């Protein structure tokens, strides 16, 4: 029998249970070793040096970087360690814009917290921070380099978990900073706006852009009818901002608070989640029976949709054409409510409360804006709603719960579990099972698709036919899965993808939490909420049926298609990036040639083409009249290499083709 192994932390015996490092063992022994750059979901980085402890025989070591060995004797609180931590925090503070009272992360900032915990009353070092401009280019995230402590959490989150790498370190020494590619702003690069970077940022260097003041303005305007939808994941998290345990369901309090804030109607995104189930389930049956691109991918998650548009345009047809529940809500509200609430379309203001930052981006997509009126006007995160409530002085915890408004506030449990990874799949299965078997008496829970594994698979047999499902969360996992599908090592029928770890309950709009089990608790609460409801299957939602009867017509029919479906297009990853490549290039040449060197074209030989083309031009008699530049993406990835000669795009370009085009254009 294996003897149990222990270490001794400050003289106290602490068991080793296969933890990845010494730090985890010590934390389990109830000593909260401070860290900035350590996250259990990310790789060990070892940069903040806050977790250093004294190991007998080894001296000071970073506890994140060593594995606990049996009988290790560890001291976590020596004079040397206290001095080191204090100096490290002082050094960070000396290079930090100290605008704490006006910072969005005030009171949830780790730097602030540690400064206080370590009793730092004065920074003995000179302030060395240089004011740098903010990146407010996107509608979603704000990047404030002045508050960045370069812990790299965001960088690793983006590349390791999300598989994107939209931001990385640049420069050396005192110039080091975290930047998007080529030093561009976020809206010009491949960021999918999932906001997970902001979720792990210990300070206010990356935050969601606030739309609170715009919403206040609409609430203050008596001409406007302001209605609001609440996403499922919001109700199990917002309580955390008011001292409640993660996973406390506070739907009724949210409704009460929203009414007090002045919202005219409070509805539930779960209603349109139910609607999504029916449309998406129907779409699946159509694809299976009539033939269509398989597997079918879910399309509820806007970051995932942007991800496909950017990296896997060849799978765009596999994305469900269903709009996300937020956008279905927007278009249904715009269709039904002006009449019902006696308000002009332009005076109806549709607000969403979302656990998500990417929903802000989604609401501004051109597909969802008609005649300059967006289906959803404003998206607030859970945090923003919490802030509105706090600023109004409402004692959230003491509120008497109120009910959601009908009809768009009525939901089944299927709509509620949308907030968990696997929830959409389960909800669709509940629909498919009944639809395909005609049997209404079956257990509504499908535990096969629940769980926390990054990629989960389930085979569901209905009426003798087996459907292969995959449930993925984290875009890095999604990338792995698609690559596996591409190389033929696996095959699926239905794939659910949520960008954020844990699904929407882990969204970047949720309250900042330092509870490592917060996601687990929120997930559990949503499943509990499902149990507590009377109805569990979307198709049982009476108001959905009514909605089809009065407004939408048939499931998957013409009106439904117009209002509830859409189609996405391939999208550039990087904008406005061009590099001059002609040696001794002079400005103002007669003809501009742009060769795409993006991944897709590169794989189709654009690099060699570029070299050959430059050589060819240098040996031609029009050398000084044409200029060659490398650029990224003309959004015709499947026809690469793509070259633009003047204003004309040449697909499947060859040197010969381009030469002909150059000569033709020059001879004009």
């Amino acid at each position, binding site marked *: 029998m294996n003897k149990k192994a222990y270490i001794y932390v400050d003289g106290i015996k602490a068991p080793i249970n296969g933890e990845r490092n010494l730090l985890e063992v010590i934390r389990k022994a109830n000593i909260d070793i401070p860290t*900035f750059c350590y996250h259990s979901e990310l790789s*060990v*980085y*070892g*940069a*903040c*040096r806050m977790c*250093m402890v004294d190991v007998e025989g080894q*001296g*000071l070591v*970073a506890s*994140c*970087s*060593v*594995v606990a060995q049996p009988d290790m004797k560890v001291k976590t609180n020596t004079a*040397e360690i206290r*001095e*080191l931590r204090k*100096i*490290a925090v002082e*050094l*960070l503070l*000396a*290079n930090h814009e100290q605008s704490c009272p006006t910072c969005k992360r005030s009171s949830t900032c780790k730097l602030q917290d540690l400064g206080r915990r370590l009793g730092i009353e004065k920074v*003995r*070092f*000179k302030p*060395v921070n240089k004011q740098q401009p903010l990146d407010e280019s996107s509608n979603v995230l704000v990047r404030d380099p002045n508050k960045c*402590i*370069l812990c*790299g959490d965001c960088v690793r989150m983006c590349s390791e978990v999300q598989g994107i790498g939209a931001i*990385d*370190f640049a*420069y*050396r*020494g*005192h*110039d*080091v900073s975290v930047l998007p590619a080529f030093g561009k702003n976020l809206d010009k690069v491949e960021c999918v706006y999932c906001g997970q970077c902001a979720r792990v940022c210990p300070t206010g260097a990356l935050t969601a852009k606030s739309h609170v003041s715009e919403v206040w303005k609409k609430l203050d305007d008596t001409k406007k009818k302001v209605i609001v939808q609440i996403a499922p994941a919001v109700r199990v998290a917002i309580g955390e901002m008011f001292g409640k345990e993660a996973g406390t369901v506070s739907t009724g309090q949210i409704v009460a608070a929203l009414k007090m804030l002045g919202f005219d109607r409070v509805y539930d995104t779960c209603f349109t989640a139910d609607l999504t189930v029916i449309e998406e389930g129907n779409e699946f049956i159509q694809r299976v029976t009539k033939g269509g691109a398989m597997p079918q991918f879910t399309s509820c998650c806007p970051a995932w949709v942007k991800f496909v548009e950017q990296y896997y345009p060849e799978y765009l047809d596999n994305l469900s054409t269903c709009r996300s529940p937020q956008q279905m809500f927007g278009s249904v509200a715009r269709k039904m409510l002006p009449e019902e609430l006696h308000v002009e379309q332009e005076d109806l203001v549709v607000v969403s409360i979302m656990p998500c930052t990417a929903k802000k981006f989604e609401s501004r997509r051109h597909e969802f804006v008609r005649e300059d009126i967006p289906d959803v006007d404003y998206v607030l995160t859970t945090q923003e709603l919490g802030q509105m409530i706090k600023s109004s002085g409402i004692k959230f915890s003491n509120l008497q719960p109120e009910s959601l408004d009908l009809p768009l506030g009525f939901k089944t449990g299927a709509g509620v579990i949308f907030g968990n990874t696997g929830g959409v799949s389960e909800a669709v299965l509940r629909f498919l099972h009944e639809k395909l078997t005609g049997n209404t008496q079956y257990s509504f829970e499908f535990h096969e698709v629940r769980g926390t594994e990054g990629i989960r698979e389930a085979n569901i047999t209905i009426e003798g036919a087996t459907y292969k499902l995959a449930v993925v969360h984290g875009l890095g996992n999604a990338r792995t899965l698609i690559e596996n599908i591409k190389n033929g090592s696996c095959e699926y029928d239905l794939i659910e993808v949520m960008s954020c770890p844990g699904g929407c309950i882990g969204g970047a709009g949720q309250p900042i939490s330092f509870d490592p089990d917060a996601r687990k608790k929120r997930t559990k609460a949503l499943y509990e909420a499902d149990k507590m409801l009377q109805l569990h299957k979307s198709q049982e939602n009476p108001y959905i049926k009514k909605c089809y009867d009065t407004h939408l017509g048939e499931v998957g029919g013409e009106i439904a298609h117009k209002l509830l479906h859409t189609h996405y297009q391939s999208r550039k990853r990087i904008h406005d990036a061009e590099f001059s490549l002609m040696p001794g290039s002079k400005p103002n040449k007669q003809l501009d040639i742009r060769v795409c060197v993006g991944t897709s074209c590169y794989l189709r030989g654009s690099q060699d083409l570029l070299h050959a083309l430059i050589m060819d031009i240098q040996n031609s008699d029009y050398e000084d009249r044409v200029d060659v530049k490398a650029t990224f993406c003309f959004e015709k990835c499947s026809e690469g290499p793509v070259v633009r000669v003047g204003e004309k795009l040449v697909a499947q370009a060859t040197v010969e083709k381009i030469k002909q085009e150059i000569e033709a254009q020059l001879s004009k």
Partner: protein
Amino acid sequence: MKQSPNNIFDNIWKPLDEPCMGKIVICTGTGCVASGSLKVLDKFVEEIKKAGFEVAQNFTEAKESEKPDSTVRLSKSGCQGFCQMGPLVTVMPDDILYTKVKPEDVAEIVQETLCNKRVIERLLYKDPVNKTPCQGQQEIVFYKRQSRFVLKMCGELDPESVEEYIERGGYDAAKKAYIDMTDEQVCKMILDSGLRGRGGGGFPTGRKWDLTRIQPGDKKYVICNGDEGDPGAFMDRSVMEGNPHSVIEGIMIAARAVGADEAYVYVRMEYPLAVKRLRKAVVDAEAKGVLGKNIFGSGKNLICHVMEGAGAFVCGEETALISSIEGKRGMPSPKPPFPAQKGLHGKPTVINNVETLATIPLIVNLGVEKFRQIGNESSPGTKTFALSGHVANTGLIEVPLGISLREIIYDIGGGVTDKNGVIGTDGFKIVQIGGPSGGCLTEQHLDIALDFDSLKKIGAMIGSGGLVVMNKHTCMVSVAHYFMQFTQNESCGKCVLCREGTKQMLHLLEDIMSGEATAQTLELLEQLARVVQKGSLCGLGKTAPNPVLSTLRHFRSEYEAHVFDKRCPAGQCKKLLVPEIDPLKCKGCTLCARKCPVDAITGERGKVHTIDPEKCIKCGACVAACKFEAVVGV
């Protein structure tokens, strides 16, 4: 009684069988090229032909020459170390070394020395002390007191000729390792030889290899770290440029020892010549069948890549270097895991520096016992140093480990120079050893043995081998500031203590140098330096405070003079100087007063002038104007 090292080396290299009537070796190391050695080379080709002889520009041409009696072999060599005296030209077989040769001297050399066998005295190096001309390396103190082991062939061999390298016995050691020895035997041999890494830490090379060898898995890598970045250091460059095949051979033996089939030479980007020569060496060695597939019929393969560095100092740190090869940003990562366990692409990897690898074939050829006769017990072998600063002879030197600083500075270096460049008697203040990560050695250390352990004991390290000698007119605070500026610029910015700590140490040093410091400044500086040393992630950060800590230890009073008396004892810190006009020197010519842009100087014509320190902006206009050197403290 130990043998004189130079006798031990004599038989390593086979003599070269070149049938030519004469041979002229021109140094084409970077230093000599910069002072014009390539023009000298061209001129030689021209003049030799003019004199009616044929020119053989490489070994093969010389070998195949149809008229050897009237053919002169012209050979380009790597760095010979005496860069200060370049371009260097050696006329063989009499080993006559001409220094500072200009193209206009070439005709005379061909005529007098090559044809008439006469020595041209004016081109010989003259001993700076007794002024006697020295004919060759054996007469020049700079060379005489060295033990050129790794560098020996750098000054003789044509670095671009694989034939010449093989002819002189090159790749014999690799053959031995691949054919006659097991991997374990190779590791044991290197372990027994006591060879320690020449890159800084002095870790036993054999142990590093054995750690890698015993790791499970088929795929392993060897990396040669040629990312030499210390200011003033050029040891590895000289080896890579001057004898690239010895590096390749060392890599082959390392690969044999650890079981690797792929190797990278990571060369500093700023060394284009080294990159070019190493690439050629790899191609040539492959063409000769010594490198590549089925090496010496052993069934073992080795692919060798030569890769240009990413241009950052920190890439010399092994984990950063690995991420750089992998195409990532060169940032160090925490150890463990060590590269021997999880290195390049997660595979066991051995990383050695250039000099270490170039020593390997010599050990295999020489045998453990003879190798251990060089150097001392704890640190066998030789070490190259880049000697610079206030010494008469600067350049690249190689000495047995355990030699004293006194021998290096006063014998090889020819003594300490004063501010006019003349050898003085009481000028020595410190030697900065090991570059920006090293420490300073003072007069009290002049006689200790220069080896890994003795230096560690006194808080310094050999580092990669920079030796900067400084005389009494050097301010220690400024020296610490200089090195701190370097590490601050080169910090990768990953760990807090190094990135922010070096920045703040720099500020604190600036406060001291400008008279704004208080007792707290000194206290904070020391505290911060200690924390950065103990807490940083990688070697760069851990050693960054060394210049501060070692100057503080040995020259605390100098720091205190800056802080408390607002005075720089060496007179170097500009902001602490009080501008004055020496009344004994001033002639009252009024020139300074007229040049002063802020009217800080007053005085009547013919009478001693004075400067108002309050008004003075220390622009230096008066100093430039004064013909009598009367203005001081500006």
